[in-house]
């Protein structure tokens, strides 16, 4: 067994080589980063346009939504940067090339995901940090050490939620072969994560809180900073939701990996 430190060291070695290889295609990197930047700002643009006609959305001001959006962008970045290889899972499973990941004395999820490190995701992360700082200055949020610790903790669990949801969708590939439709649906749902959850009524709010907990990707944890005097107790469950959901996704991944029999060729 390798220790955690071993894995981190190994990850750095693998990614340095990967980045060197990618840097041969510098134009592609630049164009992709620009594309990433635009695409991550689309929903924010929609909010901006809508606020030209209305003063608030379900009690939230534009700047508060900008804060939630910044949080969201940071929270989805680890998925984008570290787990981008997830999109190829269906091809590997279909073509049988997934078999190669069984043959190394490494954790399979680690080995599989380490094959890609999405550089353009760094643009998204940087934009998210910029937006979060900008909004918190505009909203005069006072940052204390405790708050910053809370921010990091909630961001960590929010990104686990996002990773887990996508992972669960991608794992469908082990059983139905083409998981793209499932993955596409999960990806589409993700766009709703920065919406204020209180616009939804019963059934939808329940779904986005307990079944597909998108609320935990941005909206619920953001309340800790936007209205600290009035947080609903559900927010304190956010680390449990993040870790619990990731554990579940990991379990499903393991089941999938163990049941995969290759393509026979």
């Amino acid at each position, binding site marked *: 067994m390798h220790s955690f430190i071993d894995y981190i060291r190994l990850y750095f070695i693998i990614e340095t080589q990967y980045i060197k290889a990618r840097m041969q295609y510098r134009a592609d990197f630049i164009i992709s980063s620009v*594309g990433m930047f635009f*695409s991550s700002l689309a929903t924010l643009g929609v909010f901006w346009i809508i606020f*030209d006609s209305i003063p608030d959305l379900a009690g939230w001001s534009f700047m508060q939504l900008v804060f939630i959006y910044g949080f969201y962008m940071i929270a989805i970045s680890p998925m984008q940067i570290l787990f981008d290889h997830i999109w190829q899972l269906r091809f590997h499973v279909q073509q049988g090339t997934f078999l190669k990941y069984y043959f190394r004395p490494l954790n399979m999820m680690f080995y599989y995901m380490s094959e890609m490190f999405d550089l353009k995701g760094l643009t998204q992360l940087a934009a998210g940090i910029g937006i979060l700082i900008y909004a918190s200055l505009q909203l005069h949020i006072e940052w204390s050490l405790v708050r910053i610790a809370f921010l990091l903790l909630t961001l960590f669990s929010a990104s686990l939620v996002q990773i887990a949801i996508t992972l669960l969708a991608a794992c469908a590939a082990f059983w139905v072969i083409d998981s793209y439709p499932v993955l596409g649906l999960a990806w589409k749902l993700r766009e709703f994560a920065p*919406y204020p959850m209180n*616009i939804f009524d019963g059934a939808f709010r329940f779904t986005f809180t307990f079944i597909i907990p998108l609320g935990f990707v941005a909206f619920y944890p953001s309340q800790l900073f936007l209205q600290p005097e009035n947080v609903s107790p559900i927010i304190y469950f956010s680390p449990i939701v993040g870790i619990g959901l990731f554990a579940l996704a990991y379990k499903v991944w393991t089941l999938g990996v163990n049941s995969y029999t290759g393509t026979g060729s």
Partner: protein
Amino acid sequence: MKSYLAVLRGSFMIGLIYRYGFLFNIAGNIIYMLVTYYLWKSIYQGREVLRGLTFDQTYIYVALGSAVFILLKTYVDWLLSFDIREGMIASYLIKPIDLQFYILFNSFGYSLMSLAAITLPTLILMIFVLHIEIPLGIGLALFPLSLLLAYLVSFCFDYFVGLLCFYTESIWGLSITKEIIVTVLSGALIPLQFFPDTIQKILFWLPFQAIYYTPLTMVAQPNLSMDTFLPMLGLQLFWVIVLFVFTRLFYNQAIKVLRISGG
């Protein structure tokens, strides 16, 4: 013409392979419609009219937009870049067919498949399950024609980005940038009336509105007069012609830099 129809038939059939994906697509559309219902409900917050549109008009606009989204997405940029990278493009170039029309008919086949398998079921669910009432009027009668023109405009954008791959040999960034620009500026997500006035004025001179705004408005506000609709259709037709000519001229330039390795 016969050979182009064969291409169309072929891609229609290929579309059938991805049968079970249809269900997820339809489910995705329905969820999107429900979510946007709540979103727009809270935007209107009991207000009767915003920017000259009632809630019902706006909602039909947005919901129908999500139902036709899959039709207006041609994926031509992705297919073309794939063919360029893999060298497949050479096998089209040696055939006695026109590349632009070949690709047009090919992608049109996929869109017809999506129409039958995704958009129509979505519309049926939208009307009979979600009980979204589509108002009748001349606009509704003009909608199919307008949608077809919208498709051709959208095709030109995608084809143009695909041709850019002759130069860049990378597609993700270009395609995603185009996608965002087109989706937002064409009014796919929000009716153009909601944009700030100055931006609206600029958008009027650009071709984006021909893709979503024009056909969706015909259904959302079908009782505007013919005097409003005919210039809208005319403008769409104008952009189709301009963009077709433009992409043809651009093709003649781009083909010169094409280098094929492999295939």
